[in-house]
């Protein structure tokens, strides 16, 4: 099964779809592991939004590619290097601060991306963006409220949140190294960077958290299918059944 994406727009969209899927999977890991039941439900809800978003995006991609493959093929049959999610979202759930920090850094980014997709020439993408923006807005409110609680809560919560932010910021730089595809399908890539930096800086400052100077990691671009080591483990769990029973229908 050759699942190489050919079309340029599909190549761009699959970055967004994969990012949603992998983050959804990470959040699903939190099911029955949250600080209390209400938060379990909240994270499951956001995870469901992300899976739904990924599925709709894969459908659009499959239509564009027109080779008869389904969203499930794309999810369960591609290998590590054929995945194009931002590395931020594959980072593990070290503790609840990581979950929240990762979500917040993602939400600001994706909120701006989907806003710009409202200007897309592809009406299906526009329709999806309209729906998705409401979900991201809610997720953003939720994650930002928690950044505040943890940043301003106790000494321990502040230290844990700071540690999570310090680690996760290392994976952010690649997001803003936009390539030609990004520039073709987003109306203002510089705007993504500016909006993201302004919001992160303001929020961290308001929550007694520092944005430290971070030396850029020597790291290859997610756009070329480069990852941290975490991705292989995530995929091997997620893809186990369809890989073990290739003839089965589920």
């Amino acid at each position, binding site marked *: 099964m050759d699942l190489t994406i050919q079309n340029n727009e599909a190549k761009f969209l699959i970055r967004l779809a994969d990012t949603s899927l992998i983050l959804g999977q990470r959040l699903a890991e939190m099911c029955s592991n949250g600080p*209390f039941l*209400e938060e379990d*439900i*909240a994270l499951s*809800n956001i995870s469901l939004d992300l899976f739904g978003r990924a599925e709709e995006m894969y459908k659009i991609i499959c239509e564009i590619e027109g080779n008869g493959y389904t969203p499930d093929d794309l999810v369960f049959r591609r290998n590590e290097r054929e995945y194009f999610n931002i590395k931020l979202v594959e980072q593990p759930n070290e503790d609840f601060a990581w979950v929240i920090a990762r979500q917040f850094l993602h939400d600001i980014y994706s909120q701006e991306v989907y806003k710009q997709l409202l200007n897309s020439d592809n009406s299906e993408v526009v329709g999806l963006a309209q729906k998705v923006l409401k979900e991201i807005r809610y997720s953003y*409110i*939720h994650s930002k*409220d928690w950044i505040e*609680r943890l940043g301003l809560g106790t000494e321990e919560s502040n230290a844990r949140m700071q540690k999570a932010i310090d680690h996760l910021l290392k994976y952010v730089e690649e997001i803003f190294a936009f390539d030609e595809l990004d520039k073709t399908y987003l109306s203002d890539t510089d705007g993504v960077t500016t909006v993201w930096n302004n919001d992160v800086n303001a929020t961290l400052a308001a929550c007694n958290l520092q944005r430290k100077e971070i030396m850029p990691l020597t790291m290859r671009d997610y756009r070329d299918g480069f990852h941290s080591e975490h991705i292989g483990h995530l995929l091997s769990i997620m893809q186990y059944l369809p890989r073990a029973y290739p003839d089965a229908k589920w």
Partner: protein
Amino acid sequence: MESGDKVWEVFIQKKPGLAFKHAGSCHGYDKKMAIQNARDLYTRRGEGRALWVVPSEAIVSVPLDDSEAFFDPGVDKVYRHATFYKIPDGVDHL
């Protein structure tokens, strides 16, 4: 025992124009968390368009011992109901 986790009463308005209806209670450490928890617990299936949460301890109710004194005197005032009055046949719109 952990402190800070409070109980809130949840009221949902199904659509504009309808009264808010008590749906149950939820937990939350602060107001924002309480309303988000209420949203996730009670409106996952599109049950509402507006939500209130009120700290449970703010609810005032009639003491059990006084309930007869509060409510029984309202039972026998039949003249407060439209059916108490006799109107001659042939008179409309009353």
